[in-house]
């Protein structure tokens, strides 16, 4: 079935919860209100015409600093400097969080994408782990890396990082840690190195147009 037809079925079911349908570059996307995401997912899974028995992917997104004009001027993330120190910024963070759900039906062989948006202050979406088991870990990962809470999740612990980790690294304003749990995470400090680095010779300027090589 076409994505638009599925969206119409969905809109019929959840009413005001369906916020719109966009087609353009990339996949067609149905925007759904956070409150009705569980209803929408349950409907899409159970309805005979949709029959989405598998959730392919759940992706959390931090829309902070996204260039809405498509000019590629989005905010650049922070890293370590070449001397291994964390970079810092004064920029204030804003922008919503988003969650994208990519669904697939093995029987009918069609795909569908749902997307929700929540504000940075709320940062909480109802869980769909009761609908598809696989959402359980995907949501834990999104909580871990982006700090999006999933209300009603049975076991919302960090997935990849340790419980004592500070911050959510995939946020655009995340500042790299220099140390965690007494383990040094910043790079080598050349000032204390017994083998001092060779003085840098004159580097030719990189050709314009391409980003210089990183790392």
């Amino acid at each position, binding site marked *: 079935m076409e994505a638009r037809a599925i969206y119409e079925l969905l809109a019929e079911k959840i009413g005001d919860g369906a916020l719109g349908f966009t087609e353009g*570059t990339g*996949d067609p996307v149905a925007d759904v209100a956070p409150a009705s995401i569980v209803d929408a997912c349950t409907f899409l899974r159970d309805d005979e015409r949709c029959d989405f028995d598998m959730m392919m992917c759940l992706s959390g997104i931090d829309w902070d600093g996204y260039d809405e004009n498509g000019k590629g001027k*989005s905010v650049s993330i922070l890293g370590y400097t070449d001397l291994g120190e964390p970079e810092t910024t004064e920029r204030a963070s804003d922008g919503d969080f988003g969650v994208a759900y990519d669904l697939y039906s093995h029987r009918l062989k069609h795909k569908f994408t749902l997307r929700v948006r929540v504000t940075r202050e709320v940062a909480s979406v109802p869980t769909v782990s009761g609908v598809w088991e696989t959402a359980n870990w995907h949501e834990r990962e999104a909580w871990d890396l982006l700090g999006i809470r999933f209300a009603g999740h049975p076991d919302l612990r960090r997935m*990849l990082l340790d419980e004592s980790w500070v911050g959510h690294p995939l946020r655009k304003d995340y500042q790299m840690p220099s140390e965690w749990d007494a383990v040094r995470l910043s790079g080598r400090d050349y000032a204390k190195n017994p083998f001092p680095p060779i003085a840098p010779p004159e580097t030719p300027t990189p050709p314009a147009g391409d980003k210089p090589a990183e790392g």
Partner: protein
Amino acid sequence: MATEDVKATGWADQDHVPEIKSELLELNMGPQHPATHGVLRLLLETDGEIVYKVTPVMGYLHRCAEKIAEGVNYKQWVVYTDRFDYLAPMCCNHAYVTALEKLMGQEVPERGEHLRVVAAELSRIASHLVSLATFGLDMGAFTPLLYMFREREEILNLLERIAGGRMLYNYMVPGGVRYDVPDDKWIKDVLSFVDMMETKKVPEYNTLLSYNKIFIERTANVCVISPEDAFTFGCTGPVLRGSGVSFDCRRDDPYGAYPKFDFEIPVGQGQMGAVGDCWDRYFVRMLEIEQSCRLIRQALETLPDGPYQAIELKKPVKAPMGAVYSRTESAKGELGHYLIGDGGQTAFRNKVRSPSFCNLQVVTKVGVGQMVSDLVALVGSLDIVLGEIDR
């Protein structure tokens, strides 16, 4: 055994069963453990040999790849895709460039597509060989490991000749592949390797391991994953096909040059026990090696002339604003990329849906009630790669 259990047996004097306190033994398997295929950690709660609860703990190899994707440009990030599934790096390259080209709307020349198929399928064979070998190792058979690594070395040699690297290649670029075929001898060598694989090596492995009585006893009817479980846990790849579901992204959601070729999707038949047991998952991989050989032969025999890159190598790549989810069939299953572009040279967000991550989750359900040895068999048959789970 708790007091109730003793009573339930009916053997003891019912009135005078002493108060017995029992608790489950917590067992910590990993991160340094020979059977966890890397740095996975499994927290087990066991009663003797029986496992009552499995809690996977990962992140010991969390290398921040998704963060890096937002920092480096599109072409530079191909390097990091190699390091997801380091057993089948070509498949990972293929998945990423497919997603990127879908976002860019970029066409790829025929020759490039064919070379991609050849490289990815060779890589798939290598990955399956390692998977079968380590599964055998988990079952205590050490020798097949070395036999399969012997053939893997041949594949690495072939790929080194075309891509320049021994294990991690950075071979595919947006719009094609990095290098053309080095010479005609390479094509001949690949074809002769494929012939050798089909006629000699796969039967050899079957004799050595697949139809070994002890091996069948260990794996048949062990840790059966039903199709329903597989769907709801999002299992894909040989794990799903081992459960008897005929699904393969190469056929059902075609990409690249795959629609042109003729190949079959092997599924678990339940030859040795129930459908979806460890032996089925193992044997599906063995059959897939043969299908990959078929694909390679077809792709090389119909290799068209012409360019192999659509974009000049030194030219920067820009992707328009928009979001795509693109998926390909990696050696472990469905490898998807959720890619958001903002019109620039760097991805705004790149979420990787890795097959091992989803496949591993099934352990929390299927692993319960099994013996410790069977759990090792289950983890081995899922064929996880920690680089892909933790990213």
